[in-house]
């Protein structure tokens, strides 16, 4: 067992899946010679060659389309989009093609491909490099959307994503690439479906995914010092959503707060709270709460960016106010 950075975990999953299956290829901008903007494919071009780790031109919609076409003919491409902002250019091939081909062919053709991308705000990258957009893919039938919270999950889930027969949108986070965690040396897989109770508690349920899950965990630690027992749920898979785990937790704690880094409207929090209302409305002792970004394009200035994006303190204060202790 060794500590591993998030980017190293992603790189290891690539390496093992490339070694395991000759049908696995990697495509994207600077994934080859350079080894990936976030080092997720470092050294793999040198190890597996240019036919398997393919540097593409800056043509997101078409190189995603090429990945999709290759998957229809039996390959298992892992396509990297350098930033989720650029994935907007590829929505035609991802949403109109990858998400729909299995259905509109009556199950006769499938697209087993993975589109990996970092989604989230980093540090002062301004509006066109700070998109989150998980909600956009989460609202699309025919896709799987997963958001690994840590190196361990990133490694195990990427390996599962490569082997699964559906198109998977795999959303990482720029501020998580240097996060470290112990990862077993022996190969393992983490299933794509199912939310996970990552901390047990009785007074309130905090729900998050990728970076916002980390905010929930940090807030839960602080709440503990105040005598509040917070349960923390990692959604892990935004689509399909694990409604059962959410319901069981809220039935126990009677309070729910959802943290997301995105703007609130028509977002992950909206969906989770609707789920709670549909599943267990009468279990609630307080109005559900969303902790989310301000409804603005992400600003550049450091103080404005900080004000726009939620942090662990926001989650902590939100939870206290819900418990009537703020």
């Amino acid at each position: 067992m060794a500590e591993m950075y998030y980017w190293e975990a992603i790189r290891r999953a690539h390496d093992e899946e490339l070694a395991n299956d000759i049908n696995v290829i990697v495509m994207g901008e600077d994934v080859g010679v350079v080894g990936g903007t976030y080092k997720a494919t470092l050294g793999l071009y040198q190890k597996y060659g240019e036919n398997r780790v393919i540097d593409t031109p800056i043509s997101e919609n078409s190189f995603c389309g090429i990945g999709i076409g290759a998957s229809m003919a039996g390959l298992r491409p892992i396509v990297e989009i350098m930033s989720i902002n650029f994935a907007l250019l590829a929505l035609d091939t991802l949403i109109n093609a990858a998400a729909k081909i299995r259905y509109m062919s009556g199950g006769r053709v499938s697209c087993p491909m993975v589109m990996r991308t970092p989604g989230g705000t980093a540090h002062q990258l301004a509006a066109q490099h700070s998109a989150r957009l998980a909600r956009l893919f989460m609202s699309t039938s025919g896709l799987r959307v997963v958001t690994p919270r840590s190196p361990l999950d990133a490694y195990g889930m990427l390996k599962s994503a490569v082997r699964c027969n559906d198109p998977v949108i795999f959303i990482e986070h720029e501020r998580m690439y240097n996060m470290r965690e112990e990862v077993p040396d022996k190969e393992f897989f983490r299933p794509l479906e199912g939310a996970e109770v990552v901390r047990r508690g009785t007074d309130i349920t905090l729900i998050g995914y990728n970076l916002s899950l980390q905010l929930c965990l940090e807030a839960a630690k602080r709440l503990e010092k105040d005598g509040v027992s917070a349960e923390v749920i990692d959604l892990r898979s935004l689509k399909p959503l694990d409604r059962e785990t959410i319901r069981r937790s809220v039935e126990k704690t009677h309070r729910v707060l959802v943290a997301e880094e995105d703007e609130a409207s028509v977002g992950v929090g909206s969906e989770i709270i609707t789920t709670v209302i549909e599943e267990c409305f009468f279990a609630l002792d307080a109005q559900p709460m969303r902790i989310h970004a301000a409804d603005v394009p992400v600003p550049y200035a450091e103080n404005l960016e900080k004000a726009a994006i939620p942090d662990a303190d926001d989650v902590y204060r939100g939870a206290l106010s819900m418990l009537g202790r703020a």
Partner: protein
Amino acid sequence: MNAADQKRLLREMTFFRRFEERAFEAYMEHKIGGFLHLYIGQEAVATGVLEMARRGHDYVITGYRDHVHAMKAGAPPREVMAELYGKETGSSRGRGGSMHIFDPNAKFMGGYALVGEPFPLAAGLALACKYKKTDQIAICFLGDGANNQGTFHETMNMASLWKLPVLFVCENNLYAIGTRIDRSTAVTDQYKRVCGYNIPSSQHDGQDIEIVMDSAKKAVDHVRSGKGPYFIEYLTYRLRGHSMSDKTAAYRSKEEEQQWQRRDPLKVYADKLKKAKVLTDDDIKEMEREIHEEIENEVIKFAENSPAPRVEELNKYVLDDNPDPRWIGPLQNTYQ
């Protein structure tokens, strides 16, 4: 080419024409819904090009005007008609309809409504062929209108750069729905547009199937030999409207339509074969009678008598219906 093949090709094109005319009737009877885009007038292109490909071996992909490409690639006509009828026995199990015929047995990888989307998908199919070192190629049929999409330029660049075995067939029918090509496109000769990507290309008459076949053979051979993509343009004409509701009078003249009627690919070929004494008017009559019977007795009857998809199966085919729990889970939580 021998007389038997010539007769067969005329029969195939005639079959495709009558198939679509019969689909039009069924549409007017409300047995077919949605959009219905007919290929009438362009049959020599798909029939001629795919005659030069290996059926069930080479990948074929196209836009929404896809019935004839699917059938010539090898999709059974009765399954294509059943798809138009929205039946469970259809090519896409009634989930796709006219614009989304799929038949992986024929390596027909779909019709797509997004103009320009098949370009990268075709390049991806070709990338897989090259990667696996098979002798397959991918053939992508699209209209002139698709060449104004960004995917055209992005894909031409990558296909050329990576020498992918893909044949791009441009069916230039002069109109993007109702906008004439010179009103939408700065360079109207489409084959010239790929020279910026170092892709060899040529332009040919698309109404004479033997001209189509001769030119397609060279293009297919080029692509299969590993020299990279080829772009071939055929000048052709859609004799009907873009779809059922399009009346054409708003954007093109009667004279122009009549001029192209005289170059109807069925008429061009029938005249040629009669002149060469390959067949007579009586042979054609007999052929038409056989086609009529085949369409009514095998194609239409099958479509009409097939069951509709079951509503209980609405959610089938969204994701893999039998996923491997090792990768999918779900993750087990223990509750307290």
